[in-house]
């Protein structure tokens, strides 16, 4: 079953490409919120793909590996949201080029 090995490895490779792209985003983006966009979330697809690829390499473990992937998929947005929310409440500003901030506007109106 050499073919399955190669497919699994290729899926893993595709995943690690997304992991790298997400990390490039974290390094390049101008402010915290954009870094979260590129970083924490562009990497979730990378995470999903690498885990699936490794699951294909080891089919008998696939259910458990997919469970880890689902866990990441469920918890990641919750912690990202909490962090972004806290950061905005703590007054971490948006980058200079940002178009608008409806939340800041509404807070001041209150």
């Amino acid at each position, binding site marked *: 079953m050499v073919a399955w090995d190669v497919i699994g490895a290729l899926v893993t490779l595709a995943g690690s490409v997304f992991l790298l792209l997400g990390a490039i985003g974290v390094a390049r983006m101008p402010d915290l919120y954009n870094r979260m966009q590129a970083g924490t979330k562009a990497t979730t697809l990378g995470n999903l793909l690498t885990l699936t690829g*490794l699951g294909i390499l080891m089919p008998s473990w696939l259910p458990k590996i997919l469970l880890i992937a689902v*866990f990441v998929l469920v918890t990641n947005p919750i912690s990202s949201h909490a*962090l972004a929310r*806290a*950061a905005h409440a703590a007054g971490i500003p948006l980058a200079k080029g940002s178009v608008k901030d409806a939340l800041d506007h509404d807070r001041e109106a209150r």
Partner: protein
Amino acid sequence: MADTILLIALVLAAGAVLLAVLRLLRGPTAADRAVALDVMTLVFVPGMVALAVFSGRKIYLDVALVYGVLSFLGVMSLARYFDRGI
């Protein structure tokens, strides 16, 4: 063939960790560092699963799962801390 592809994948993942470390060192705010740590977690979890697959020890899958849980709790408590202090 498969081994070569996986080696390339490992190099790319290592590059991702390096870039995250760069952001971890540069900051500028604590929340940025938290994001960098979160990215590193997302790389390390499949890394641990890879370790489990290649060493053939299924117990490492549980290590990866618990690591994911702890990282989630860590980011949540950091967010709570930024919001209103401990």
